């Protein structure tokens, strides 16, 4: 027993006497461990809150039919430009007021978030599959195929994202499906570059070579050995890509180049609200924007946390 306690005491002593010198940050002492823990706990609480909010918004979007008070496209002429319910001129089912044609703002937000999430996740999913396949094969096969793909990536990444999206929407015209495809096209290049980079860094490793020696086919090696290692960077990229695409969708729709006017969309709702802004009807544009900001902020909090958790040593690349 004494043999057990003695080294522990010794250890304790040596640890105390050889504690690393405290680092100093510009006038401030090195932040003590308990403060760091507290900070981490607090930020985790933020992440938990954001995640909870995200699920709430997701549930509202999925069950929009039951959650929304009225049909978002229903125009009620006697309820045009009604202020929110807490205003004395507010009307009962229109909790956040109505727009110029008597459409309910809250219902438009709920259905609009559905479109935002739909566009965000589906188009990021498509660009993920596209970029993953092209990046994986480019990094594995090398040669001419790699040159072509990486040149295309270079070209696309050296142009402003919004410009590419705008030009494609001008050619193809409005439409939900078209927009999902256009946004997918604008996003594939970063996936291809990320995946290829990962593949290049591990394709010469011994265990990949041993897989070659064991006679595995190229697809087995690509999927079971190379793709597995690309999951973390791809996950981190996706968490940044989804809010970016959601924002781009709202922007395109605001400009009238996104979804058709008969689709309830946040961008369109803000555009309609903007038209009546100067008549004092602020609610029609402010609330949809707030909802979008809430959604994007929640995803961003989650994305930050995910990156820190998966790549603690990485430089923050926003």
């Amino acid at each position: 027993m004494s043999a057990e306690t003695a080294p522990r005491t010794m250890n304790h002593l040596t640890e105390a006497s050889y504690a690393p010198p405290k680092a100093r940050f510009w006038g401030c002492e090195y932040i003590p461990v308990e403060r760091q823990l507290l900070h981490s706990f607090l930020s985790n609480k933020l992440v938990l809150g954001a995640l909870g909010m995200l699920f709430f918004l997701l549930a509202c979007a999925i069950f929009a039919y039951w959650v929304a008070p009225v049909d978002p496209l229903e125009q009620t002429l006697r309820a045009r430009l009604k202020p929110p319910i807490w205003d004395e001129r507010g009307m009962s089912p229109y909790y956040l007021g109505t727009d110029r044609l008597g459409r309910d703002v809250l219902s438009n937000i709920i259905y609009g978030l559905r479109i935002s999430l739909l566009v965000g996740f589906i188009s990021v999913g498509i660009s993920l599959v596209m970029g993953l396949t092209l990046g994986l094969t480019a990094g594995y096969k090398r040669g001419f195929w790699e040159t072509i793909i990486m040149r295309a990536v270079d070209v696309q990444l050296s142009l402003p994202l919004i410009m590419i999206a705008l030009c494609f929407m001008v050619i193809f015209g409005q439409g939900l499906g078209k927009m999902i495809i256009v946004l997918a096209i604008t996003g594939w290049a970063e996936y291809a570059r990320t995946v290829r980079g990962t593949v290049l860094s591990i394709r010469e490793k011994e265990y990949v070579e041993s897989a070659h020696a064991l006679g595995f086919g190229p697809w087995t090696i690509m999927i079971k050995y190379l793709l597995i290692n690309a999951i973390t960077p791809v996950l981190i990229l996706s968490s940044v890509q989804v809010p970016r695409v959601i924002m781009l969708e709202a922007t395109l729709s605001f400009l009238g180049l996104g979804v058709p006017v008969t689709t309830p969309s946040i961008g369109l709702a803000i555009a309609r609200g903007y038209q009546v802004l100067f008549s004092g009807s602020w609610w029609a544009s402010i609330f949809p924007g707030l909802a979008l900001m809430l959604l994007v902020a929640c995803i961003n909090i989650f994305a930050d946390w995910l990156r820190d958790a998966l790549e603690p040593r990485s430089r923050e690349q926003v």
Partner: protein
Amino acid sequence: MGIYLLRRLYQAILVLLVVSGIVFVILHISGDPLALLMPQDAPPSDIEEMRRSLGLDKPLIVQYGLFLKNAAQGNLGVSYHHGQPALRLVLERLPASLELVVTTILISLILAVPIGVLAASRRGTTVDRASLLGSLIGISAPPFWIGIVFILIFSVELQWLPSSGRGTWAHLILPAGSLALYRLALFIRLIRAGMLDIMTMDFIRTARSKGVSEQKVIYKHALKNTLIPFVTIAGMQMGSLLAGAIVTEKVFAWPGMGRLFLEAIGVMDFPVIIAWALVTSTIFLTVNLAVDIIYVWLDPRIRHEK
């Protein structure tokens, strides 16, 4: 270094060729230009004559060559709507857009550097937390919506600043401010993260152990090294702002290139759309090339490489 820059130049030219190629194909799948140029009751012989005189009867690849030749001479066609050279129309609007973009970048840089440094040097304090929260809001809010909020507060409620048009400094504040918010937030995050990263490096410890004052460690050693990679990001943001400012130009009725582009879309004025795309990508590529040169010049590790 010379080879590196040459490669970048070659790449920029390649991108412009691809953009012009895509744009050219768009022009040709978007419909017969003669249908827009000629009156509807023109006899077929006249249409054929016009087609020959415009070179539209030649194979597509020859036409592309002609298009490139004209483009190199600054001729991107005549606007269907305004009847003036498309390139001139776009370039006339360029100063207004540049004014907005440069002001935006200046506002974001001037505010972001001190806030980012302060947040990084007081990590974990209320200042840091507030800057993180603020920048989270900044990167999550759509810029056009921020513009609407600004109009509501400063134009409609307080009536301090004009909500549309261009001319005085007062006109510039709201559009540039609303555009700057996102970049400001982005820059704060990048500078803070860069500073925190640099502060753990060996040369900072060396500087401290030499007895260099903390102030000097922060501003001379850490900030300088943080800002070098930051130049690239700030430059790229400047290029993408030129395209991204479209929404803000719409919200504030700012007479820039973006508004011209939106008007051109409304009337399907393809030469103007093409001219806008080419001018925007040329500027974007030029800025990026300039940023690369500055980066090489700033970083001795690359400068002295053979």
